[in-house]
């Protein structure tokens, strides 16, 4: 594809790729939030987070398999099943994330920083192999339950499908709910306090272990929601999606300033836009290189990420 391909209306084309990029970016954002929140509270890069996301998608796939759904059928039954999958994946990933913290990270809470970090890498590999055992080495088809038809007219210049709507409809309310939770609830306030200074928070009577568990639960739950959304949007899952999406999401969190919630969302949206616009204006095979090139450039000029230094609170 030539650079700046000749198209009928360049602005409509641009808009189309912006829509695609934002959709993909908001999916990355859900995963990136888990990295950034955990880092904000315990200063640990939870490398296993992407793999929790991957296992969530296999939970959903297993449910579809048990019910025997392979393709779209009765819309009401499909909708009920999708909701059930969301609930199951959210509960599963949240619980799994708490369990990982309790069993592996908690005993290392006061150990040198590298000890939990290396343990996190170990957990990631264990989960990868669980996924390999569960789903096999190859790409697995995830049932295509949502219509691919354009919500506008089929002949419209801009394409926006039920799948894109679903991604936005899942991610935006979740992100709003998270903001409300962190800003306005007492547990949310406790989280922000723990992020700023865990010792002082503890002296003020905050049970920091509860706060940490809540953080892992929320991060896991968001990954669970993201996993089903991903399955329904991309329609393919494999044990490798944990590593690949985890890498992008982690990059998004670093890009936005790790530990900063709006930063993670911003970083994810930028990555989504770069992959989408890069695919069209530069070339499909350069998209991942482009993402990391932009990461490097931004980190050179703003080492703490886009929003990292501006706000002091980490959660």
């Amino acid at each position, binding site marked *: 594809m030539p650079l700046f391909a000749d198209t009928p209306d360049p602005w409509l084309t641009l808009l189309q790729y912006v829509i695609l990029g934002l959709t993909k970016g908001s999916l990355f954002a859900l995963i990136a939030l888990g990295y950034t929140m955990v880092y904000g509270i315990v200063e640990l890069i939870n490398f296993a987070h992407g793999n929790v996301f991957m296992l969530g998608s296999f939970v959903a796939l297993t449910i579809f398999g048990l019910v025997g759904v392979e393709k779209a059928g009765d819309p009401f039954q499909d909708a009920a099943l999708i909701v059930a999958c969301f609930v199951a994946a959210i509960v599963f990933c949240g619980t799994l994330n708490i369990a990982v913290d309790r069993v592996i990270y908690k005993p290392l809470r006061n150990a040198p920083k590298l000890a939990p970090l290396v343990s996190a890498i170990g957990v990631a590999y264990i989960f990868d192999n669980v996924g390999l055992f569960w789903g096999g080495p190859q790409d*697995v088809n995830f049932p295509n339950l949502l219509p691919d038809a354009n919500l506008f007219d089929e002949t419209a210049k801009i394409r926006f499908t039920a799948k894109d709507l679903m991604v936005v409809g899942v991610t935006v309310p979740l992100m709003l709910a998270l903001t409300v939770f962190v800003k306005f609830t007492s547990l949310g306030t406790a989280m922000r306090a723990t992020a700023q200074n865990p010792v002082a928070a503890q002296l003020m009577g905050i049970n920091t272990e509860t706060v940490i568990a809540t953080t892992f639960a929320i991060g896991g739950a968001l990954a669970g929601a993201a996993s089903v959304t991903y399955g329904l949007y*991309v329609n393919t899952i494999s044990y490798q999606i944990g590593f690949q999406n985890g890498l992008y999401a982690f990059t998004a969190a670093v890009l936005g300033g790790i530990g900063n919630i709006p930063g993670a969302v911003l970083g994810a949206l930028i990555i989504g836009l770069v992959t989408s*616009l890069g695919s069209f204006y530069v070339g499909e095979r350069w998209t991942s290189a482009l993402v990391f090139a932009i990461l490097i450039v931004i980190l050179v000029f703003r080492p703490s990420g886009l929003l990292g230094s501006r706000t002091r609170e980490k959660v």
Partner: protein
Amino acid sequence: MPFRVSVPLVLVVAFVAVGLVAGRRDTRGRPDVITIVSSLPRSGSARGQTDVITNGIKLAFHDIGYKLDVTDPGTGEKRTFTLEYLDLDDATAAAGQWTIEQEIANANQARTDPDVMAYIGTYNSGAAKVSMPILNRAGIFMVSPANTAPALTRAGEGERHEPMCYRPTGVVNFARVIPTDDLQGELSVLWARDLGVKKIYILDDNEVYGGGIAAVVKAKCPKYGITVLGHQSIDSKAQEFTPLMTAIKAMAPDLVYFGGTTQTKAGQLLKDMVKVGMTCPMMGPDGCFEKAMIDSAGKDTLEKLPFYATFGGLPIDALTRGKGKEFVDKYTALYKAPPADAYATYGYEAALVTLEAIRRAGKKDRDAIRVAALAVKNFEGATGTWSFDENGDTTNQTMSGSTVVDGAFKFSRALQLPAK
């Protein structure tokens, strides 16, 4: 300080010494045993195809009870060798596909084992590039049931130093029983023309096999009056291609050609074509001609868009006559099910021609077997009657096109170049 002996150190030294003595290889081997190895990705995503390839190989040995009677053409001496088959894996579960280290280790194992007389492999053309020079120096006959990259055997198809860099001794030791990609590429274009395609968009996975065949398709399109709208490589590590397909849809091609395999996202590309609302079909080479393609693309996707796959030979459901039918019947009888994949035939064919070479050589000698193998002419095998040419390529030039009907590949037509 007095000199103290460290107990662990002594133990380590002792173990290493014992290991060196015990691990020394027997350089003479067993006089009545001939070992044939295969090196294929037995773990990872190509497992399905390599299962049937090894089944095909074992069937050829099973047919003769793992005993081979030969007569030395020089001395007239009659002997019976016991055949031994080693099924080596050139992949690791962690990588999910073949690795350079594993393929080197397999080639070295074959080289150093004096009983190994032939090497059946590889599955991936990239892997063949790694083991070919090692086996060439050892003078072992290597026959591939699946390598289709033309540059492995012929000059002018790839880099300037190919294929001589795979033949450091200057003699040919590599042969294949499957036709090459350049032919497959041209026949794909021929089929596309017959399907009424005027405009084509070409994608490839940026690998030796996929990129090679896509380049051939691109080069042959003008000859058949097809316009190439564009050609791009994808990143096979990417997870979805909606932006790419949106761009391709805007150009309105009649066909999207993907030079790649199921493992490099053929299924996902098809899904994303459906997602962006494209209605034109997709065509792919034999790397997509497998059940895994249908599983990964999803049956419902394949009902919405036609998918055409070419294959460098005849699929199982086209083997209805002669030795081909005989093979399918024997396979079904032994494994209680017909071959699940067309590569089974080529595994069988590779093993058959290897046995024929040993029979003709009449002795357990790597070089005699290599010479006898490459001299095979008018061989009657399961894929028809064919010969090895001077480069080690099969003269069998019939390929086939299949399409997906009701969630399974169905033989659609035989593909042959028009007579010159």
